[in-house]
Protein backbone atom coordinates (compact mmCIF):
# COMPACT_ATOMS: atom_id res chain seq x y z
CA UNK A 1 0.00 0.00 0.00
CA UNK A 2 1.71 3.11 -1.19
CA UNK A 3 -0.87 5.44 -2.72
CA UNK A 4 -3.67 7.01 -0.73
CA UNK A 5 -6.97 6.69 -2.53
CA UNK A 6 -8.94 7.16 0.67
CA UNK A 7 -8.78 10.93 1.03
CA UNK A 8 -6.19 10.74 3.82
CA UNK A 9 -3.23 11.60 1.56
CA UNK A 10 -3.56 15.35 1.98
CA UNK A 11 -4.12 17.30 5.18
CA UNK A 12 -5.44 20.82 4.53
CA UNK A 13 -3.41 20.93 1.34
CA UNK A 14 -0.26 19.45 2.89
CA UNK A 15 1.10 16.08 1.74
CA UNK A 16 0.27 13.72 4.61
CA UNK A 17 3.56 11.90 4.08
CA UNK A 18 5.45 15.04 5.07
CA UNK A 19 3.76 15.06 8.50
CA UNK A 20 5.39 12.91 11.17
CA UNK A 21 2.38 11.61 13.11
CA UNK A 22 1.54 7.99 13.76
CA UNK A 23 1.62 5.51 16.64
CA UNK A 24 4.54 3.22 17.40
CA UNK A 25 3.90 0.06 19.43
CA UNK A 26 6.42 -1.09 22.00
CA UNK A 27 5.95 -4.86 21.71
CA UNK A 28 7.65 -5.47 25.03
CA UNK A 29 4.85 -3.58 26.72
CA UNK A 30 1.91 -4.58 24.50
CA UNK A 31 -0.26 -7.24 26.13
CA UNK A 32 -2.54 -7.64 23.12
CA UNK A 33 -5.73 -6.27 24.69
CA UNK A 34 -6.76 -4.82 21.32
CA UNK A 35 -8.13 -1.55 22.67
CA UNK A 36 -5.90 0.51 20.36
CA UNK A 37 -7.09 -1.49 17.36
CA UNK A 38 -10.77 -0.81 18.03
CA UNK A 39 -10.21 2.73 19.29
CA UNK A 40 -8.98 3.68 15.83
CA UNK A 41 -11.92 4.26 13.49
CA UNK A 42 -12.85 1.66 10.92
CA UNK A 43 -12.28 4.21 8.18
CA UNK A 44 -8.67 4.80 9.20
CA UNK A 45 -7.97 1.42 10.75
CA UNK A 46 -4.29 2.09 11.36
CA UNK A 47 -3.71 -1.13 13.31
CA UNK A 48 -3.52 -4.77 12.48
CA UNK A 49 -3.45 -7.48 15.10
CA UNK A 50 -1.36 -10.61 15.35
CA UNK A 51 -3.56 -13.16 17.16
CA UNK A 52 -0.76 -15.66 17.62
CA UNK A 53 1.69 -13.26 19.22
CA UNK A 54 -1.15 -11.18 20.71
CA UNK A 55 0.38 -7.91 19.57
CA UNK A 56 -1.07 -4.82 17.94
CA UNK A 57 0.81 -3.92 14.76
CA UNK A 58 0.81 -0.54 13.01
CA UNK A 59 0.07 -1.38 9.37
CA UNK A 60 -1.29 1.88 7.89
CA UNK A 61 0.58 4.68 9.69
CA UNK A 62 -0.22 7.24 6.97
CA UNK A 63 -3.94 6.77 7.68
CA UNK A 64 -3.47 8.13 11.19
CA UNK A 65 -5.48 11.28 11.80
CA UNK A 66 -3.16 14.22 12.30
CA UNK A 67 -3.28 15.22 15.97
CA UNK A 68 -5.17 12.15 17.18
CA UNK A 69 -3.49 9.93 19.77
CA UNK A 70 -6.56 8.29 21.24
CA UNK A 71 -4.93 4.85 20.97
CA UNK A 72 -2.00 6.05 23.09
CA UNK A 73 -4.33 7.60 25.64
CA UNK A 74 -6.34 4.38 25.92
CA UNK A 75 -3.36 2.07 26.45
CA UNK A 76 -3.03 1.22 30.15
CA UNK A 77 0.35 -0.39 29.49
CA UNK A 78 1.85 2.75 27.94
CA UNK A 79 2.86 0.65 24.95
CA UNK A 80 2.10 3.32 22.34
CA UNK A 81 4.14 6.41 21.62
CA UNK A 82 3.71 9.36 19.26
CA UNK A 83 6.01 12.13 18.09
CA UNK A 84 5.95 15.47 19.93
CA UNK A 85 2.69 17.22 18.90
CA UNK A 86 4.06 20.78 19.06
CA UNK A 87 5.20 20.86 15.39
CA UNK A 88 1.57 20.11 14.46
CA UNK A 89 0.45 23.26 16.20
CA UNK A 90 3.09 25.22 14.31
CA UNK A 91 1.97 23.70 11.01
CA UNK A 92 -1.64 24.51 11.87
CA UNK A 93 -0.67 28.09 12.65
CA UNK A 94 1.00 28.47 9.25
CA UNK A 95 -2.11 27.09 7.52
CA UNK A 96 -4.25 29.62 9.36
CA UNK A 97 -1.85 32.42 8.47
CA UNK A 98 -1.73 31.56 4.77
CA UNK A 99 -5.53 31.54 4.62
CA UNK A 100 -6.01 27.86 3.88
CA UNK A 101 -8.06 27.08 7.00
CA UNK A 102 -10.23 30.17 6.52
CA UNK A 103 -11.05 29.09 2.97
CA UNK A 104 -11.97 25.60 4.10
CA UNK A 105 -14.13 26.96 6.90
CA UNK A 106 -15.99 29.22 4.48
CA UNK A 107 -16.62 26.30 2.12
CA UNK A 108 -17.73 24.10 4.99
CA UNK A 109 -20.24 26.65 6.26
CA UNK A 110 -21.58 27.14 2.74
CA UNK A 111 -21.88 23.43 2.06
CA UNK A 112 -23.39 22.72 5.45
CA UNK A 113 -25.38 25.80 6.53
CA UNK A 114 -26.74 23.93 9.58
CA UNK A 115 -23.22 24.20 11.03
CA UNK A 116 -23.81 27.88 11.64
CA UNK A 117 -25.76 29.04 14.66
CA UNK A 118 -27.88 32.05 13.95
Amino acid sequence: MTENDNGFGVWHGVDRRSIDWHPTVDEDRCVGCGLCVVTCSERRNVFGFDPERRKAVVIYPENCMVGCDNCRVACLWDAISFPDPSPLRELARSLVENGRIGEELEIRLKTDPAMALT
Partner: protein
Amino acid sequence: MSERGSGPAAAAVTGVHGAGAKRWHGVERSMYEWFPIVDYEACTGCGLCLLTCGNGVFRWSSSGNVPVVADPGSCVLGCTTCGKLCPEDAIKFPDDPKLFLEKAIRENRIYPQVRRELDERLRKYPDHRVTGGVENDGK
Protein backbone atom coordinates in the same frame (compact mmCIF):
# COMPACT_ATOMS: atom_id res chain seq x y z
CA MET B 1 -24.47 -3.33 31.12
CA SER B 2 -24.27 -6.82 29.70
CA GLU B 3 -21.56 -9.21 30.81
CA ARG B 4 -21.28 -12.04 28.31
CA GLY B 5 -22.83 -11.30 24.91
CA SER B 6 -26.33 -12.68 24.48
CA GLY B 7 -29.73 -11.32 23.64
CA PRO B 8 -30.63 -7.76 22.73
CA ALA B 9 -27.97 -6.26 25.00
CA ALA B 10 -25.22 -7.90 22.95
CA ALA B 11 -26.60 -6.35 19.77
CA ALA B 12 -26.73 -2.95 21.41
CA VAL B 13 -23.10 -2.87 22.46
CA THR B 14 -21.38 -3.76 19.21
CA GLY B 15 -20.71 -0.24 18.00
CA VAL B 16 -20.44 3.37 19.09
CA HIS B 17 -22.45 4.81 16.24
CA GLY B 18 -25.65 2.80 16.65
CA ALA B 19 -29.03 4.44 16.90
CA GLY B 20 -30.12 5.69 20.30
CA ALA B 21 -27.76 6.29 23.19
CA LYS B 22 -24.09 6.51 22.30
CA ARG B 23 -22.02 3.74 23.78
CA TRP B 24 -18.33 3.44 24.53
CA HIS B 25 -17.25 -0.20 24.63
CA GLY B 26 -20.61 -1.11 26.06
CA VAL B 27 -20.78 1.80 28.49
CA GLU B 28 -23.28 4.60 28.17
CA ARG B 29 -21.41 7.62 26.88
CA SER B 30 -23.68 9.94 28.86
CA MET B 31 -22.23 8.63 32.14
CA TYR B 32 -19.13 10.69 31.43
CA GLU B 33 -18.39 14.35 30.96
CA TRP B 34 -15.69 14.84 28.38
CA PHE B 35 -15.70 17.71 25.95
CA PRO B 36 -13.59 20.63 24.75
CA ILE B 37 -13.75 23.94 26.59
CA VAL B 38 -12.91 26.96 24.44
CA ASP B 39 -11.03 29.85 26.00
CA TYR B 40 -12.57 32.73 24.10
CA GLU B 41 -9.91 35.13 25.34
CA ALA B 42 -7.36 33.14 23.34
CA CYS B 43 -9.51 31.86 20.44
CA THR B 44 -8.98 33.75 17.18
CA GLY B 45 -11.85 32.01 15.38
CA CYS B 46 -9.74 30.19 12.80
CA GLY B 47 -12.17 27.25 12.72
CA LEU B 48 -9.62 24.45 12.62
CA CYS B 49 -11.28 22.73 15.59
CA LEU B 50 -14.59 22.57 13.74
CA LEU B 51 -12.91 21.28 10.59
CA THR B 52 -10.91 18.70 12.52
CA CYS B 53 -13.62 17.17 14.69
CA GLY B 54 -15.10 14.14 12.98
CA ASN B 55 -17.97 13.93 15.45
CA GLY B 56 -19.68 17.26 14.94
CA VAL B 57 -18.98 18.54 18.44
CA PHE B 58 -18.55 22.10 17.21
CA ARG B 59 -20.86 24.48 15.42
CA TRP B 60 -20.12 28.00 14.31
CA SER B 61 -21.34 31.24 15.79
CA SER B 62 -21.66 33.55 12.83
CA SER B 63 -22.34 36.52 15.06
CA GLY B 64 -19.22 36.01 17.17
CA ASN B 65 -17.17 34.35 14.43
CA VAL B 66 -16.08 31.68 16.89
CA PRO B 67 -16.64 27.94 17.37
CA VAL B 68 -19.25 26.82 19.86
CA VAL B 69 -19.26 23.45 21.63
CA ALA B 70 -22.76 22.52 20.50
CA ASP B 71 -22.75 18.75 21.05
CA PRO B 72 -20.38 17.92 23.95
CA GLY B 73 -21.88 14.43 24.31
CA SER B 74 -20.49 13.47 20.89
CA CYS B 75 -16.88 14.13 21.90
CA VAL B 76 -14.86 10.90 21.95
CA LEU B 77 -13.87 10.02 25.53
CA GLY B 78 -10.23 10.99 26.06
CA CYS B 79 -9.86 12.68 22.66
CA THR B 80 -7.93 15.96 22.63
CA THR B 81 -7.19 16.22 18.91
CA CYS B 82 -8.75 19.66 18.42
CA GLY B 83 -6.83 20.94 21.44
CA LYS B 84 -3.47 19.68 20.22
CA LEU B 85 -3.95 21.34 16.83
CA CYS B 86 -5.35 24.67 18.05
CA PRO B 87 -2.76 27.28 17.01
CA GLU B 88 -3.57 29.37 20.09
CA ASP B 89 -3.78 26.47 22.56
CA ALA B 90 -7.25 27.80 23.34
CA ILE B 91 -8.96 24.46 23.95
CA LYS B 92 -8.89 22.65 27.29
CA PHE B 93 -10.55 19.49 28.63
CA PRO B 94 -12.10 18.61 31.99
CA ASP B 95 -9.23 16.34 33.05
CA ASP B 96 -5.95 14.80 31.98
CA PRO B 97 -7.03 12.46 29.16
CA LYS B 98 -4.93 9.50 30.25
CA LEU B 99 -6.03 9.64 33.89
CA PHE B 100 -9.63 10.16 32.83
CA LEU B 101 -9.66 7.21 30.44
CA GLU B 102 -7.79 4.90 32.80
CA LYS B 103 -10.46 5.47 35.43
CA ALA B 104 -13.28 4.87 32.93
CA ILE B 105 -11.59 1.71 31.62
CA ARG B 106 -11.01 0.28 35.08
CA GLU B 107 -14.37 1.10 36.61
CA ASN B 108 -16.26 -0.46 33.70
CA ARG B 109 -14.07 -3.51 33.08
CA ILE B 110 -14.38 -3.00 29.36
CA TYR B 111 -11.89 -5.62 28.13
CA PRO B 112 -14.36 -8.48 27.48
CA GLN B 113 -16.31 -6.08 25.27
CA VAL B 114 -13.08 -4.84 23.66
CA ARG B 115 -12.22 -8.45 22.85
CA ARG B 116 -15.57 -8.92 21.09
CA GLU B 117 -15.03 -5.69 19.16
CA LEU B 118 -11.53 -6.81 18.18
CA ASP B 119 -12.83 -10.16 16.91
CA GLU B 120 -15.52 -8.35 14.95
CA ARG B 121 -13.00 -5.89 13.48
CA LEU B 122 -10.73 -8.69 12.30
CA ARG B 123 -13.68 -10.59 10.84
CA LYS B 124 -14.78 -7.51 8.95
CA TYR B 125 -11.27 -6.54 7.83
CA PRO B 126 -9.39 -9.82 7.38
CA ASP B 127 -6.32 -8.03 5.98
CA HIS B 128 -5.81 -6.61 9.47
CA ARG B 129 -5.13 -10.07 10.84
CA VAL B 130 -1.34 -10.19 10.60
CA THR B 131 1.23 -12.83 11.37
CA GLY B 132 4.81 -12.43 12.47
CA GLY B 133 4.57 -8.65 12.39
CA VAL B 134 7.21 -8.43 9.67
CA GLU B 135 5.44 -8.47 6.30
CA ASN B 136 3.20 -5.59 7.32
CA ASP B 137 5.44 -3.00 8.89
CA GLY B 138 3.73 -0.02 7.28
CA LYS B 139 6.50 0.59 4.78
